């Protein structure tokens, strides 16, 4: 295995008596799609927060692309290519769909301390944004304010914003939640296409998607990694079946 893009060493975090992250050590390979699954409240979103810097750690170390980023603030991590989508949709509601994506592109395109040129006519940003909207199928809605999107459409918008952020690693927190079958299918296709290009961490409860996409899966229960392996290994693990998968067959 080549050097991992992201490595977590001994992460721990408690809220009072509740241990949400309990000595998590994990490596994400430079080209893999790594799924993290686990019951509700297991600490998956919290783990993503710890990686991006939103949730301060009690102990542990986060190394990204060979650099220790444990102490860096959120935006500095984002600028280094750590890109996330949110489980509970986070968009810029009054901006148009296009502006939402163009803003994401702007973050990675030179300084934003520019006071005079009209940004709405900035072709470089807009072109990138349009391309991303094409990929997720939101192009027709580009000029609408983002609030007027339906729930599922907002999820697609989040993905588009992640795509233009020049990610070195994509952290996707339940991107399929709230999407219909068709949209899920097309998102799976999008992620399939991206798979070689970006390493990804995917948190998702849609097992059909996870088992099709993931190279490796880690299972988080009560803040601990209880299993880690290929999809087949994980699917076969009785502990995982009991804690998470249940009776359903995810062939």
């Amino acid at each position, binding site marked *: 295995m080549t050097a991992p893009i992201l490595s977590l060493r001994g992460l721990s975090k408690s809220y009072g008596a509740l241990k949400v992250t309990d000595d998590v050590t994990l490596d994400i390979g430079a080209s893999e799609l790594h799924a993290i699954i686990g019951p509700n409240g297991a600490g998956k979103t919290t783990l993503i927060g710890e990686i*991006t810097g*939103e949730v301060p750690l009690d102990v542990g170390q986060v190394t990204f692309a060979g650099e220790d980023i444990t102490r860096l*603030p*959120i*935006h*500095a991590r*984002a*600028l280094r290519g750590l*890109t*996330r989508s*949110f489980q509970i949709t*986070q*968009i*810029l*509601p*009054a*901006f148009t769909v296009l*502006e939402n994506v163009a*803003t*994401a592109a*702007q*973050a*990675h395109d030179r*300084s*934003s*301390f*520019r*006071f*005079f*040129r*009209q*940004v*709405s006519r*900035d072709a470089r940003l807009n072109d990138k944004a349009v391309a991303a909207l094409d990929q997720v199928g939101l192009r027709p809605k580009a000029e609408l*304010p*983002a*609030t*007027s999107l339906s729930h599922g459409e907002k999820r697609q918008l989040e993905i588009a*914003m992640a795509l233009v*952020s020049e990610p070195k690693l994509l952290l996707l927190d339940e991107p399929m939640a709230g999407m219909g079958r068709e949209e899920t299918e097309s998102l799976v296709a999008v992620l399939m296409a991206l798979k070689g290009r970006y390493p990804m961490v995917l948190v998702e409860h849609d097992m059909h998607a996870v088992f099709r996409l993931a190279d490796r899966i880690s299972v988080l229960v009560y803040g601990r990694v209880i299993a880690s392996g290929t999809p087949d290994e994980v699917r076969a693990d009785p502990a995982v079946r009991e804690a998470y998968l249940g009776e359903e067959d995810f062939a």
Partner: protein
Amino acid sequence: MADIATSAPASIPAPLWRRHAIALVIFAALAVVPFIWPERYVLSLVGRAMVFGIAALSLDLILGYGAMVSFGHAAFLGLGGYAVAILSAHGIDEAAISFPVAMLVGAAFALVTGAISLKTRGVYFIMITLAFGQMAFFTATSLSAYGGDDGLRMFSRSDVFGTRLLRNETSFYFVVLGVLLGVYLLLRAIVGSRFGRVLRGAKENERRMRALGFDPFRYRLAAYVISGAICALAGALFANLTLFVSPAYMSWQRSGDMIAMVVAGGLGTLNGAIIGAIGVLLIEEWLAELTQHWKALFGPLVVLVAIFARGGLVKLIDRGAGR
């Protein structure tokens, strides 16, 4: 607690031509005033309204586009005024010196207080800016050497590169109009720029902006400093207009008046700030002529604007023109 102004209803911005049409009408109207009413009191009334227009524009930048409700903004007005008046008391009457100094003073005060205030959000921000405004107010009150509570007189308007340009009422009027136009164009450019987009984005959803890689604090602070400098410039003009500065220019009521102007005119539109400032001052003046109990009329008027002109007077004009 929900952040101030994030709950504003989303709206598709008015078409470009209409936005410019309103601004065009305003500036054209202001430009012809001296030809129709050359009387001094009209020039000084409208001049005062324009000075407040500049101050309101500066407030709209942070309030309307950045959701930073500064409740101490009058402090900048006062600081700018005191800078000019104190320099003048020491014999420096040159605007080319005193105006930049005023702006620097405003910017410096904004930098220091902003760096502290911007740790907070929403109503907490409102109150911490009020606190700094009050400190400035009490400091001015205890400046015995410069008149303290009674205020400080200026004996003449500032010179401009040695000329007495500002002493003529009409040319003073056009200078103020020119500054208003300049500030308007500057801010119009800023809010549409990359910088402006980050500012607006941070108002919409700070968490999202951070995750995209922006540090909202730096942009907000920069906007706050720009705003403070511009408002201090308004203060410098204000001191020249009234030939007098006093702590009363910095009172919290005055900051409240400025917020009311911007909100009544229409938040985050720039046009609204100008319309609000001019509208409020002219209506006040007009009502005060009608009756001594004019506040009993003005108050309900303000309430009606708040309730019915959703989005302020510009929205009302927009809707009227939209039919």
